[in-house]
C-alpha cells in the first residue's frame, strides 16, 4: 500500500473526508500511479486544479431558509498571490458569514482558523483544495470553497 493510499484511508477513518471524497482521492492516486507506469493518462480525467490562481468562497442561503435569521450572500474570488502576501481572507467576509465558512471548514476536517491562515496552514489548505472542493451546509447556508 502506498503512503498516499494509507493517508487517505486514515483521513476516512478519522472522519475528515467522506466516503465519496476518499473514493475520488483513491482514484486519483491510482491514476497517478498508472500514469507514472505509462499505462494511462491521469491528467485527462483528473479533476485536480493545477496551478490555481484564485480561491473562491461562496455562501448562499439554502432554499426555504428561515427568513427570521440573517441571510448572507457571499461570493469572493481572491487571488492566491494576495492571500500568500498576507491578506486576511476572513477580513473580506462579514462576521457571521465568516463563522459559517469557518464552520464548513471544520466540518470537512480543516482545523485551521481562517482569520489566522498563514504559511504552512495556508499551503495545506490550498493543496487540499486542489484535490477537493468544500461543499457544506451550515446554519441554513450552503458553503462552497474551491480554487480555480
Amino acid at each position: 500500500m502506498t503512503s498516499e493510499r494509507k493517508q487517505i484511508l486514515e483521513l476516512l477513518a478519522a472522519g475528515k473526508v467522506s466516503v465519496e471524497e476518499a473514493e475520488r482521492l483513491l482514484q486519483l492516486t491510482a491514476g497517478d500511479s498508472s500514469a507514472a507506469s505509462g499505462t494511462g493518462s491521469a491528467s485527462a480525467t483528473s479533476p485536480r486544479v493545477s496551478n490555481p490562481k484564485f480561491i473562491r468562497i461562496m455562501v448562499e442561503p439554502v432554499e426555504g431558509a428561515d427568513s427570521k435569521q440573517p441571510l448572507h450572500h457571499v461570493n469572493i474570488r481572491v487571488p492566491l498571490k494576495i492571500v500568500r502576501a498576507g491578506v486576511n481572507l476572513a477580513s473580506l467576509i462579514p462576521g457571521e458569514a465568516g463563522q459559517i465558512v469557518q464552520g464548513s471548514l471544520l466540518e470537512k476536517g480543516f482545523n485551521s482558523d481562517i482569520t489566522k491562515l498563514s504559511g504552512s496552514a495556508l499551503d495545506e489548505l490550498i493543496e487540499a483544495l486542489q484535490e477537493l472542493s468544500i461543499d457544506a451546509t451550515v446554519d441554513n447556508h450552503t458553503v462552497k470553497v474551491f480554487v480555480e
Partner: protein
Amino acid sequence: MIPPMVMWIRFRWFAIWVPLFLLWPVLVVLWLLFIPFVLLGMLVAGRISRFWKVIQLTLAAYVMVCALRGLRVDVRSDRTTFQIHLI
C-alpha cells in the same frame, strides 16, 4: 503582468466604476520624474547602495498590484451590500 484596468465598487445604493487604466500612465510618469531625485538624494546622502532596494520595492509593489487583477468581493446581507470587482 498587467495591472487591473477597471475597478467597480458598489456600497449600498452607491456604485461607481473607476478607470484605473487612466491612472497607471500618470503614475509611471510621476515615478519616472521622481526617481532621478531619489537617486540624487541617495548620492548626496552617500546611500547609493540603497537605490537598488528602492527599485526592488517598486517592482514588488507593481507585482502585488498586478496580482489584484481578478479580485471579486460580493457581500450581500439583509443590512448591507458591498461589491468590488477588479477587472
